[in-house]
């Protein structure tokens, strides 16, 4: 075996071991790398044990059509978030991003209240991977080819 060949095997073997180690670490930390939970995941978590109100977490999903409203005080915004399976009611006081719309994907950070409402302290809009001019979007809607404002 030439020295070059041996070095090739050493570097290759080292890379293989390191990649495996990295994959194992990432798999172990899976829970912590997830940026948000879907309403279904949230429901499954609450089934196992109630989420204490001091625990901070993020939920993500689509804003349900016709669900956005305001509370009696005029500043608290209420809406529902869904992943088309489960629905979570959300309350939020603050500024909404430009892309916030019904049918749009969002990520909300906050905590669970005892009654199953999510009290958001921050709402972020999640943009999808579709890029097109306005005319094309309208043409698609007219032709009935529209996939909706969600993934």
């Amino acid at each position: 075996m030439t020295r070059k060949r041996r070095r090739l095997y050493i570097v290759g073997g080292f890379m293989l071991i390191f990649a495996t180690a990295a994959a194992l670490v990432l798999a172990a930390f899976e829970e912590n790398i997830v940026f948000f939970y879907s309403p279904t995941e949230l429901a499954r978590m609450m089934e196992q044990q109630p989420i204490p109100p001091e625990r901070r977490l993020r939920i993500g999903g689509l804003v349900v059509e016709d669900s956005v409203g305001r509370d009696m005080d005029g500043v608290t915004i209420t809406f529902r978030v869904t992943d088309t399976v489960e629905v979570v009611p959300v309350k939020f006081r603050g500024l909404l991003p430009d892309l916030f719309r019904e049918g749009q994907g969002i990520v909300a950070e906050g905590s669970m209240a005892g009654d199953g409402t999510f009290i958001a302290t921050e709402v972020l809009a999640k943009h999808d991977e579709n890029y097109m001019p306005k005319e094309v979007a309208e043409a698609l809607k007219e032709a009935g080819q529209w996939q909706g404002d969600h993934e």
Partner: protein
Amino acid sequence: MSIHYFANPARFTRLAGRIQPWAGGLTAVLLLIGLYMALVEAPADYQQGDTVRIMFVHVPAAWMAMFCYTFLAVASAVALIWRHPLADLAAKASAPIGASFTFLALVTGSIWGKPMWGTWWVWDARLTSVLILFFLYLGYMALWEAIEDGQKAGKAAAVLALVGAVNVPIIKFSVDWWNTLHQPASVLRMDGPAIHSSMLWPLLIMALAFKAYFVTLLLARMRMELNLRRIRAMRLAERTS
């Protein structure tokens, strides 16, 4: 012709000197066309409006950030295994270019994120892994400077580059493996691009412009590095004579 044909520094310098102006010219032409298409001709997005134009810089910069690192890692492997004298040089020369593209991707992404997401920064898997990439570049450059002996520095930096290479697939697939705020891939995906052709073309031309710019800078930096080594050798020879 083996890979050792261009191992001769004089031969490489001659060839690089001939290619460099062409690569520079190509960069200028592509950049002009690309910027015109991206800023003037391309339509506004149906959701993002004119903010979508940031993408024409952000996405090619992010691609280059990953491309430069892949180049850096491959060059480092060639330097470690085959001891190709120019591989070391190519790896060292590509690091600051890659770091700059990564920085550009992070900054433009942040500027886009504020109006669109509602935040400058979040710690999701995509953004965090790209930030780690930026630190890997900085660490690689620092390691070259920290060790005086050029040969030892090259070897240590090459090992770091290979260790960091595991981050590249993590960046690419972070949006598929985990829930992230960052959207999934629009161009390089299995079902074909999810981006209208009126926006895809300016994006691809900008990407080519960035590639040509990389070649221009890489050749310039490698020639500079070769000249620096020659100066050092000449000084040493002068002192000993």
